[in-house]
């Protein structure tokens, strides 16, 4: 039997959607018994969310002042210390999990499986390499603990229909003081999060200025959509870093993705290819984005966007 520990991600008293996706991945491991560990100064609220996730047996709270900010150097020794009770330790492939989980794996003494996109057995997984241009099937050597990150775009969120036991725990681990949190500046403007939004509208370099991104924002507000950007648009300074969609930015899987003025570089396509429906609006009919779009519209975005806004009002 597999005993799977998921390191939950949370912020501002809310469980991040990435955790529910890790639960779906973990539940695909045959015979898995699932526990979620939460590290924070007060995890009562996210623990309530976590306990509702279907398939989870236990939620373990590790509340400690040192855990206020999710510092990998602080949390990793605690995860490693409790890992002995589990066959698998999973975290999300978000910047939280990517930062933390390899540090956990090294302390345990195993190589990590990065970005699980499919579970074939308790020890066999599929993961993308070369920016998604090749897919590996990998097997963990028998008897080794599995430490892995989960590619959240590959899994649906587990439904909130469960009722797990919540336990407050303490762990013996030496917590370093060499790493200190200073600040977090967020570009959040009250819009849905890119990684959990049902609809995402992204702009490319063809938008021409940060001011023109307002065209996207006003449509996004009508659709309840998140706004993303291509790497070219971010590099040109039209959009904030945390809006970048693609292999080197955020990998997303919304129900509807609308790419506006984005030609479709490989690294961008890698970040969106799990979207259910892709729409491309571009004036270049040869743009590679049209090769993968479900609906393509060849036209000038400065004409199309105002029309769209009117039609959606």
């Amino acid at each position, binding site marked *: 039997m597999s005993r799977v520990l998921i390191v939950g991600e949370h912020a501002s008293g809310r469980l991040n959607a990435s955790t529910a996706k890790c639960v779906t991945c973990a539940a695909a491991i045959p015979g898995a018994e699932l526990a979620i560990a939460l590290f924070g100064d007060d995890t009562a609220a996210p623990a309530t969310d976590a306990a509702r996730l279907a398939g989870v047996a236990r939620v373990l709270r590790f509340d400690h002042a040192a855990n206020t900010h999710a510092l990998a150097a602080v949390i990793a020794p605690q995860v490693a210390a409790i890992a002995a009770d589990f066959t698998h330790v999973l975290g999300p492939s978000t910047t939280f999990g990517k930062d933390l989980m390899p540090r956990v794996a090294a302390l345990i003494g195993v190589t990590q499986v990065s970005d699980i996109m499919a579970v074939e057995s308790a020890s066999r997984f599929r993961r993308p*390499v070369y920016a998604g241009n090749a*897919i*590996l099937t990998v097997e963990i050597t028998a008897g080794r603990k599995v430490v892995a990150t989960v590619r959240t775009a590959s899994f649906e969120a587990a439904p909130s229909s469960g009722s797990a036991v919540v336990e407050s725990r303490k762990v013996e681990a030496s917590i370093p003081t060499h790493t*200190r949190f200073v600040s977090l500046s*967020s570009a959040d403007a009250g819009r849905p999060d890119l990684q959990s939004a049902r609809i995402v509208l992204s702009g490319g370099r063809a938008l021409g200025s940060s001011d023109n991104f307002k065209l996207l924002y006003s449509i996004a507000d009508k659709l309840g959509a998140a706004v993303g950007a291509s790497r070219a648009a971010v590099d040109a300074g039209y959009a904030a870093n945390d809006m970048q969609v693609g292999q080197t930015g955020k990998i997303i899987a919304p129900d509807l993705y609308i790419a506006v003025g984005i030609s479709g570089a490989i690294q961008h396509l890698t970040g969106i290819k799990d979207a259910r429906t892709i729409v491309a609006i571009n004036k270049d009919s040869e743009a590679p984005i049209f090769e993968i779009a479900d609906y*393509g519209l060849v036209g000038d975005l400065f004409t199309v966007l105002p029309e769209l806004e009117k039609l959606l009002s």
Partner: protein
Amino acid sequence: MSKVMVCIKRVVDYNVRVRVKPDGSGVITDGVKMSINPFDEIALEEALRMRERGAATEVVAVSIGPADAQQQLRTALAMGADRAVLVQNDGAIEPLTAARIFLKLVEKEAPGLVILGKQAIDDDNNQTGQMLAALWNRPQATFASKVELDGKVARVTREVDAGLETLEVDLPAVLTTDLRLNEPRYVKLPDIMKAKKKPLDTVTLESLGVTPTNDVKVLRTDSPPQRQKGVLVKSAAELVEALRKKGLVA
């Protein structure tokens, strides 16, 4: 700070369209252009800028790979690294083994800072820097987009999903670079000539006393499923109608 160590990986150039071998045994690398992993190039550039503004005295570029990885180390020397070390090994190296090797080099070199790319663009593992920091029992600041050195500490701005996070870490520490940390310089021809005279040492895995791990065995390599090309619509009205029909927009 005296020394910055930069870890460099030889990878398939990022402009190459990678193809999977028909028998599923890997990707085609024969005759394919190889380069320094782009994130590692950013790591090297950051180290060179530290030395140029007097915050570091020496930049050492290190790599693990086949004899041909000397080419990438020569490029690193041409960019401005003072010397280079190649840990020569022909087989595949897992991130944990790479971290153990780099730890051996760290013990020898005693750098004030180790900088690596956040991930290599071949295996996309994103593990080695974090693992080195864990084994070394030192701070890590991953996905760095800005680094300020101030005596015995570094203030590092990190690109995280929620925005930009700033950490303060005691030195020595491990940094991994994100795309926007800097733009690496171009190598000039005279620098390529000069780089030929710079020291490049080669050591073996055995001499470092590291035994490679084999925790994650690759069974098969497949091409990803392709999305099918869809339909072209003629107008915004037609597009909205199609999306409404599928229940995607109200």
